[in-house]
Protein backbone atom coordinates (compact mmCIF):
# COMPACT_ATOMS: atom_id res chain seq x y z
CA UNK A 1 0.00 0.00 0.00
CA UNK A 2 1.35 3.38 -1.02
CA UNK A 3 0.37 7.01 -0.67
CA UNK A 4 1.13 9.21 -3.66
CA UNK A 5 1.34 12.93 -3.16
CA UNK A 6 1.67 15.31 -6.11
CA UNK A 7 2.62 18.91 -5.26
CA UNK A 8 2.28 21.66 -7.86
CA UNK A 9 2.88 25.42 -7.74
CA UNK A 10 -0.27 27.52 -7.39
CA UNK A 11 -1.33 29.26 -10.58
CA UNK A 12 -0.62 32.73 -9.16
CA UNK A 13 2.99 31.84 -8.28
CA UNK A 14 5.73 32.50 -10.80
CA UNK A 15 6.96 29.10 -12.08
CA UNK A 16 10.19 29.84 -13.95
CA UNK A 17 11.08 26.13 -14.13
CA UNK A 18 7.77 25.34 -15.85
CA UNK A 19 8.24 28.24 -18.28
CA UNK A 20 11.81 27.15 -19.11
CA UNK A 21 10.79 23.52 -19.71
CA UNK A 22 7.88 24.71 -21.85
CA UNK A 23 10.08 26.86 -24.06
CA UNK A 24 12.61 24.02 -24.38
CA UNK A 25 9.84 21.64 -25.48
CA UNK A 26 8.62 24.18 -28.03
CA UNK A 27 12.18 24.69 -29.23
CA UNK A 28 12.49 20.91 -29.75
CA UNK A 29 9.41 20.98 -31.94
CA UNK A 30 6.79 19.53 -29.57
CA UNK A 31 3.66 21.44 -30.54
CA UNK A 32 0.38 22.17 -28.84
CA UNK A 33 1.74 22.75 -25.34
CA UNK A 34 -0.17 25.45 -23.52
CA UNK A 35 1.65 25.30 -20.17
CA UNK A 36 4.10 23.29 -18.06
CA UNK A 37 4.11 23.23 -14.26
CA UNK A 38 7.04 21.68 -12.42
CA UNK A 39 6.23 20.27 -9.00
CA UNK A 40 7.17 17.39 -6.72
CA UNK A 41 6.06 13.79 -6.37
CA UNK A 42 6.31 11.89 -3.09
CA UNK A 43 5.68 8.16 -2.77
CA UNK A 44 5.13 6.98 0.77
CA UNK A 45 5.12 3.28 1.60
CA UNK A 46 2.52 2.37 4.20
CA UNK A 47 3.07 -0.42 6.69
CA UNK A 48 0.97 -3.59 6.09
CA UNK A 49 -2.36 -3.52 7.89
CA UNK A 50 -2.50 0.30 8.08
CA UNK A 51 -6.00 1.67 8.52
CA UNK A 52 -6.77 3.47 5.25
CA UNK A 53 -9.03 6.17 6.62
CA UNK A 54 -6.64 7.01 9.44
CA UNK A 55 -3.67 7.06 7.04
CA UNK A 56 -5.51 9.37 4.69
CA UNK A 57 -6.36 11.77 7.49
CA UNK A 58 -2.83 11.79 8.90
CA UNK A 59 -1.20 12.26 5.50
CA UNK A 60 -3.59 15.05 4.56
CA UNK A 61 -2.54 16.82 7.73
CA UNK A 62 1.16 16.19 7.03
CA UNK A 63 0.77 17.38 3.43
CA UNK A 64 -0.88 20.57 4.61
CA UNK A 65 1.51 21.30 7.51
CA UNK A 66 4.81 20.12 6.11
CA UNK A 67 5.02 18.38 2.74
CA UNK A 68 3.47 21.31 0.86
CA UNK A 69 3.38 25.03 1.62
CA UNK A 70 -0.23 26.18 1.14
CA UNK A 71 0.98 29.74 0.45
CA UNK A 72 2.59 28.69 -2.83
CA UNK A 73 1.57 25.09 -3.56
CA UNK A 74 -1.42 22.77 -4.05
CA UNK A 75 -1.30 19.03 -3.48
CA UNK A 76 -3.24 15.90 -4.38
CA UNK A 77 -3.16 12.81 -2.19
CA UNK A 78 -3.97 9.35 -3.48
CA UNK A 79 -3.72 6.02 -1.64
CA UNK A 80 -3.31 2.90 -3.78
CA UNK A 81 -2.93 -0.82 -3.08
Amino acid at each position, binding site marked *: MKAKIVIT*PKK*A*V*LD*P*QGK*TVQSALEHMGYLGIAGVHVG*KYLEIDLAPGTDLAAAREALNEAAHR*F*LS*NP*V*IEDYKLEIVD
Partner: protein
Amino acid sequence: MHFAVLQFPASNCDQDCLHAVRVLGHTGEFVWHKEISLGVADAVIVPGGFSYGDYLRCGAIARFSPVMQAVQQFAANGGLVLGICNGFQILCEAGLLPGALVRNRDLQFHCEQVYLRTANRNTSFTSAIPADRPMRMPIAHGEGCYFADEPTLAGLRERGQILWEYCSAAGELTEASNPNGSLQNIAGIANEGFNVAGLMPHPDRASELLLGTEDGRWIFESMVRSVVAASTRAA
Protein backbone atom coordinates in the same frame (compact mmCIF):
# COMPACT_ATOMS: atom_id res chain seq x y z
CA MET B 1 23.31 43.18 24.49
CA HIS B 2 23.33 39.41 24.03
CA PHE B 3 22.31 37.69 20.79
CA ALA B 4 21.38 34.03 20.28
CA VAL B 5 22.51 32.82 16.84
CA LEU B 6 20.76 29.59 15.84
CA GLN B 7 22.70 26.75 14.21
CA PHE B 8 21.01 24.18 12.01
CA PRO B 9 22.77 21.42 10.07
CA ALA B 10 24.17 23.32 7.03
CA SER B 11 23.74 26.82 8.43
CA ASN B 12 26.75 28.64 6.96
CA CYS B 13 26.38 32.26 8.05
CA ASP B 14 26.20 31.52 11.79
CA GLN B 15 29.87 32.48 12.21
CA ASP B 16 29.35 35.68 10.19
CA CYS B 17 26.40 36.70 12.35
CA LEU B 18 28.20 36.13 15.64
CA HIS B 19 31.27 37.92 14.29
CA ALA B 20 29.16 40.89 13.19
CA VAL B 21 27.51 41.40 16.59
CA ARG B 22 30.92 41.09 18.31
CA VAL B 23 32.46 43.65 15.93
CA LEU B 24 29.64 45.98 16.97
CA GLY B 25 30.63 45.53 20.62
CA HIS B 26 27.95 43.08 21.69
CA THR B 27 27.97 39.47 22.83
CA GLY B 28 26.36 36.37 21.46
CA GLU B 29 26.33 32.59 21.48
CA PHE B 30 25.39 29.78 19.17
CA VAL B 31 22.26 27.82 19.98
CA TRP B 32 22.12 24.34 18.41
CA HIS B 33 18.85 23.40 16.71
CA LYS B 34 18.17 20.56 19.15
CA GLU B 35 18.15 22.92 22.15
CA ILE B 36 14.79 23.66 23.69
CA SER B 37 15.85 26.93 25.30
CA LEU B 38 17.39 30.16 24.01
CA GLY B 39 19.16 30.89 27.27
CA VAL B 40 19.48 34.53 28.30
CA ALA B 41 19.26 36.05 24.81
CA ASP B 42 17.98 39.60 24.31
CA ALA B 43 17.41 38.90 20.62
CA VAL B 44 17.59 35.96 18.20
CA ILE B 45 19.26 35.79 14.79
CA VAL B 46 18.27 32.97 12.42
CA PRO B 47 21.26 32.90 10.07
CA GLY B 48 21.69 32.10 6.40
CA GLY B 49 22.76 28.82 4.88
CA PHE B 50 21.12 25.72 3.49
CA SER B 51 19.51 24.20 6.57
CA TYR B 52 18.82 20.48 6.04
CA GLY B 53 20.19 20.79 2.51
CA ASP B 54 17.17 22.89 1.46
CA TYR B 55 15.40 19.51 1.09
CA LEU B 56 11.66 19.62 0.36
CA ARG B 57 11.59 23.46 0.47
CA CYS B 58 14.06 25.99 1.90
CA GLY B 59 13.44 26.17 5.64
CA ALA B 60 10.65 23.57 5.63
CA ILE B 61 12.46 21.05 7.83
CA ALA B 62 14.32 23.52 10.04
CA ARG B 63 11.09 25.10 11.19
CA PHE B 64 10.17 21.88 13.04
CA SER B 65 13.47 21.80 14.97
CA PRO B 66 13.11 21.85 18.76
CA VAL B 67 14.77 25.28 18.98
CA MET B 68 12.07 26.78 16.75
CA GLN B 69 9.49 26.03 19.46
CA ALA B 70 11.57 28.24 21.76
CA VAL B 71 11.76 30.92 19.04
CA GLN B 72 7.96 30.82 18.62
CA GLN B 73 7.58 31.36 22.37
CA PHE B 74 10.26 34.08 22.42
CA ALA B 75 8.49 35.91 19.57
CA ALA B 76 5.08 35.48 21.21
CA ASN B 77 6.49 37.25 24.27
CA GLY B 78 7.60 40.18 22.09
CA GLY B 79 11.28 39.20 21.72
CA LEU B 80 13.16 40.47 18.65
CA VAL B 81 13.85 37.83 15.99
CA LEU B 82 15.78 38.58 12.78
CA GLY B 83 15.98 36.05 9.95
CA ILE B 84 18.64 36.54 7.29
CA CYS B 85 18.45 34.74 3.93
CA ASN B 86 17.75 31.08 4.83
CA GLY B 87 16.68 32.47 8.23
CA PHE B 88 14.03 34.56 6.44
CA GLN B 89 12.86 31.44 4.59
CA ILE B 90 12.65 29.51 7.89
CA LEU B 91 10.60 32.27 9.57
CA CYS B 92 8.15 32.30 6.63
CA GLU B 93 7.84 28.50 6.73
CA ALA B 94 7.27 28.73 10.49
CA GLY B 95 4.41 31.15 9.97
CA LEU B 96 6.20 33.84 11.99
CA LEU B 97 6.27 35.96 8.82
CA PRO B 98 3.66 35.98 6.03
CA GLY B 99 4.32 34.83 2.46
CA ALA B 100 7.01 32.57 1.01
CA LEU B 101 10.27 32.68 -0.92
CA VAL B 102 10.40 30.83 -4.23
CA ARG B 103 12.93 30.23 -7.02
CA ASN B 104 14.52 33.36 -8.47
CA ARG B 105 12.68 34.35 -11.63
CA ASP B 106 15.73 33.67 -13.84
CA LEU B 107 16.46 30.32 -12.08
CA GLN B 108 19.99 31.54 -11.29
CA PHE B 109 21.76 31.77 -7.96
CA HIS B 110 22.51 35.46 -7.39
CA CYS B 111 25.66 36.42 -5.54
CA GLU B 112 26.05 40.17 -5.86
CA GLN B 113 25.73 43.55 -4.18
CA VAL B 114 22.28 45.16 -4.06
CA TYR B 115 20.85 48.45 -2.85
CA LEU B 116 18.01 48.61 -0.38
CA ARG B 117 15.48 51.35 0.26
CA THR B 118 14.10 51.33 3.80
CA ALA B 119 10.35 51.72 3.45
CA ASN B 120 9.55 52.05 7.16
CA ARG B 121 12.10 53.64 9.52
CA ASN B 122 9.87 53.48 12.56
CA THR B 123 10.60 49.90 13.66
CA SER B 124 12.94 47.94 15.94
CA PHE B 125 14.90 46.81 12.86
CA THR B 126 15.17 50.10 11.00
CA SER B 127 15.20 53.05 13.43
CA ALA B 128 18.98 53.59 13.22
CA ILE B 129 19.18 53.43 9.40
CA PRO B 130 20.21 56.77 7.87
CA ALA B 131 17.52 58.33 5.68
CA ASP B 132 19.81 60.06 3.20
CA ARG B 133 20.83 57.10 0.99
CA PRO B 134 20.02 53.47 0.25
CA MET B 135 21.95 50.72 2.05
CA ARG B 136 24.30 48.50 0.07
CA MET B 137 24.80 44.86 1.03
CA PRO B 138 25.29 41.47 -0.62
CA ILE B 139 22.78 38.81 -1.53
CA ALA B 140 23.58 35.13 -2.13
CA HIS B 141 20.51 33.03 -2.85
CA GLY B 142 18.66 30.91 -5.38
CA GLU B 143 15.23 31.11 -3.73
CA GLY B 144 14.68 34.73 -2.77
CA CYS B 145 11.68 35.69 -4.86
CA TYR B 146 9.15 36.95 -2.32
CA PHE B 147 5.55 35.86 -2.92
CA ALA B 148 2.33 36.53 -1.04
CA ASP B 149 -1.24 36.67 -2.32
CA GLU B 150 -2.84 40.02 -3.15
CA PRO B 151 -4.73 40.58 0.13
CA THR B 152 -1.61 39.72 2.16
CA LEU B 153 0.52 42.14 0.11
CA ALA B 154 -2.04 44.92 0.46
CA GLY B 155 -2.11 44.38 4.23
CA LEU B 156 1.68 44.41 4.47
CA ARG B 157 1.82 47.70 2.55
CA GLU B 158 -0.99 49.30 4.54
CA ARG B 159 0.49 48.43 7.94
CA GLY B 160 4.06 49.37 6.99
CA GLN B 161 5.34 45.79 7.33
CA ILE B 162 7.43 46.06 4.17
CA LEU B 163 10.76 47.17 5.64
CA TRP B 164 13.19 46.95 2.72
CA GLU B 165 12.85 47.09 -1.06
CA TYR B 166 15.43 46.46 -3.78
CA CYS B 167 16.31 49.76 -5.45
CA SER B 168 18.90 51.37 -7.71
CA ALA B 169 22.04 53.10 -6.37
CA ALA B 170 20.03 56.31 -6.60
CA GLY B 171 17.27 54.83 -4.43
CA GLU B 172 14.67 54.28 -7.16
CA LEU B 173 12.49 51.18 -7.21
CA THR B 174 13.17 49.81 -10.69
CA GLU B 175 12.63 46.44 -12.34
CA ALA B 176 16.35 46.24 -13.12
CA SER B 177 17.28 46.59 -9.44
CA ASN B 178 15.08 43.62 -8.47
CA PRO B 179 17.51 40.67 -8.51
CA ASN B 180 15.06 37.81 -8.08
CA GLY B 181 11.57 38.81 -9.20
CA SER B 182 10.21 39.54 -5.71
CA LEU B 183 6.73 41.07 -5.81
CA GLN B 184 6.89 44.85 -5.37
CA ASN B 185 10.71 44.61 -5.06
CA ILE B 186 10.29 43.28 -1.51
CA ALA B 187 13.62 42.40 0.12
CA GLY B 188 12.48 42.20 3.74
CA ILE B 189 9.35 42.37 5.89
CA ALA B 190 8.19 42.39 9.51
CA ASN B 191 5.30 40.66 11.24
CA GLU B 192 2.25 42.55 12.49
CA GLY B 193 3.81 42.94 15.93
CA PHE B 194 7.01 44.38 14.37
CA ASN B 195 9.19 42.16 16.59
CA VAL B 196 9.99 39.55 13.91
CA ALA B 197 11.68 40.53 10.65
CA GLY B 198 13.36 38.78 7.75
CA LEU B 199 15.36 39.82 4.71
CA MET B 200 17.21 38.06 1.91
CA PRO B 201 20.27 40.42 1.83
CA HIS B 202 23.07 39.86 4.33
CA PRO B 203 23.67 42.60 6.93
CA ASP B 204 25.99 40.10 8.64
CA ARG B 205 28.33 40.22 5.64
CA ALA B 206 28.15 44.00 5.49
CA SER B 207 29.05 45.28 8.94
CA GLU B 208 32.74 46.13 8.42
CA LEU B 209 34.41 48.44 5.90
CA LEU B 210 36.91 45.66 5.29
CA LEU B 211 34.07 43.83 3.55
CA GLY B 212 33.28 46.78 1.31
CA THR B 213 30.24 48.08 3.17
CA GLU B 214 29.15 48.51 6.76
CA ASP B 215 25.55 49.48 6.03
CA GLY B 216 24.35 46.21 7.54
CA ARG B 217 25.36 47.35 10.99
CA TRP B 218 22.41 49.79 11.06
CA ILE B 219 19.99 46.88 11.27
CA PHE B 220 21.76 45.36 14.29
CA GLU B 221 22.14 48.84 15.84
CA SER B 222 18.38 49.38 15.43
CA MET B 223 17.71 46.14 17.32
CA VAL B 224 20.12 47.18 20.09
CA ARG B 225 18.49 50.60 20.35
CA SER B 226 15.08 48.95 20.71
CA VAL B 227 16.19 46.46 23.39
CA VAL B 228 18.05 49.16 25.37
CA ALA B 229 15.00 51.44 25.21
CA ALA B 230 12.74 48.61 26.42
CA SER B 231 15.03 47.71 29.34
CA THR B 232 15.30 51.39 30.32
CA ARG B 233 11.53 51.61 30.39
CA ALA B 234 11.33 48.43 32.49
CA ALA B 235 13.89 49.78 34.98
